[in-house]
């Protein structure tokens, strides 16, 4: 939901944080080596026979998650990927792999590893779509001894388009436009000036939101617009998973914000992924431009604390 330009400073805070650690699901073994050599068409005799070594380029294969999913991934790396997902960068492609081999791997070697998030690039536009490059560095050990390093770069991106007709477009559909009428025009005029205006009853001084022609307390039709400070807290929220709406990319959080002035309004939360929104979380008003034009008030949550 965020303006993707806004998310980079937050993405950057993940640099240097651990991405994962763990143990290869299988020790180095001759059947996996044979399958690899069959697939690659590699007839190198060093990889076969009674005392084979593993092809060095298999290094990453020993630590792949496989079908049973990630096991050693840190919460930080999961958060980084979720942030990218929530910025619309839902697709992933590997772009670079740099490996250094310190010793040959042989059947029986138990593989362990530690990964760190080395860098996150600013937003880049590529042929596939717009996104961020994420580089991780993994140190791999065999029976506890350093065996190699594996640096891997992926592009997390918003697909430019689905390839075939009939496939749902990932983006491009416009959001519903606000309905502006005589009763609420003052509110939208304030938004256009990046001011969040609320009504105060001239008769009883009660604040009200959303904008209405009369006071719900005393019935007076007289009111004055006052500007909210922009400070607030999350009073409640829901996470929308289904149904999807073309302009939005679920899951996303819809929050009820209690402003410092005491009135409540429904808005988006920016700055954190949907699963980090919490009741009571302090938030600050900010304005984002969507669909290339419409300005909207949303509320930014503080960036998570970074532990190094």
């Amino acid at each position, binding site marked *: 939901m965020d303006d993707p330009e806004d998310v980079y400073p937050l993405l950057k805070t993940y640099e240097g944080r651990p991405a994962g650690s763990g143990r290869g699901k299988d020790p180095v073994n001759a059947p996996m080596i044979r399958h690899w050599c069959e697939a690659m068409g590699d007839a190198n005799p060093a990889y076969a026979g009674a005392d084979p070594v593993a092809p060095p*380029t298999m290094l990453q294969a020993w630590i792949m998650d496989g079908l049973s999913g990630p096991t050693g991934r840190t919460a930080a790396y999961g958060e980084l990927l979720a942030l990218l997902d929530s910025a619309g960068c839902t697709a992933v492609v590997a772009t670079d792999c740099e490996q250094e081999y310190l010793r040959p791997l042989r059947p029986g070697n138990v593989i362990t590893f530690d990964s760190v998030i080395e860098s996150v690039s600013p937003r880049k536009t590529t042929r596939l779509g717009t996104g961020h490059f994420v580089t991780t560095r993994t140190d791999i050990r065999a029976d506890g001894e350093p065996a190699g390093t594996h640096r891997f770069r992926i592009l997390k991106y918003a697909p430019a388009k689905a390839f075939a007709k009939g496939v749902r477009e990932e983006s491009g559909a416009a959001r519903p436009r606000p309905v502006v009428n005589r009763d609420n025009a003052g509110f939208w005029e304030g938004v256009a000036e990046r001011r969040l205006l609320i009504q105060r009853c001239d008769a009883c001084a009660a604040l009200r939101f959303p904008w209405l022609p009369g006071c719900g307390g005393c019935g007076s039709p007289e009111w004055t617009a006052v500007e909210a400070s922009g400070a607030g807290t999350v009073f409640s929220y829901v996470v929308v998973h289904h149904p999807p709406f073309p302009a939005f990319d679920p899951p996303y959080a819809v929050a009820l914000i209690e402003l410092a002035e005491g009135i409540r309004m429904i808005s988006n939360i920016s700055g954190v992924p949907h699963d980090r929104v919490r009741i009571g979380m302090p938030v600050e008003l900010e304005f984002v431009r969507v669909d290339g034009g419409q300005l909207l008030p949303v509320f930014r949550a503080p960036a998570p604390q970074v532990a190094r």
Partner: protein
Amino acid sequence: MRAGDELPALTVPVTRTFVVAGAIASRDFQDVHHDAEAARAKGSPDIFLNILTTNGLVGRFVTDHFGPRATLVKVSIRLGVPNYPGDDLVLTGRIASVNDRTAEVSVIGTNRLGRHVTGTVTVTLPPPVPA
């Protein structure tokens, strides 16, 4: 072994079976490497070769030339255009530099769409066997 030497080209016929076999042998179950329908939904016209297979082919290309006693020290690759089924991958290489028994080889892999992979491989050779 001298700087400037060319390695014999290796042509790999990239069939659908080859793409899937490489993905599964490298334990990469990302759907874009075996499920054409899922690949299309993600903006790709077909399944495509995964990076681990390309990495394995680059390693094989170099050791095919230098022999089973050669040891790979480093393999660095960058992917360019994807490699879809039905498109041969042609690997070419040139020795960029030699330092004693260690050579740095520049590798390029091209297909119909252009450059699929650009890489650098560092390989060491065992000392010559005394006669």
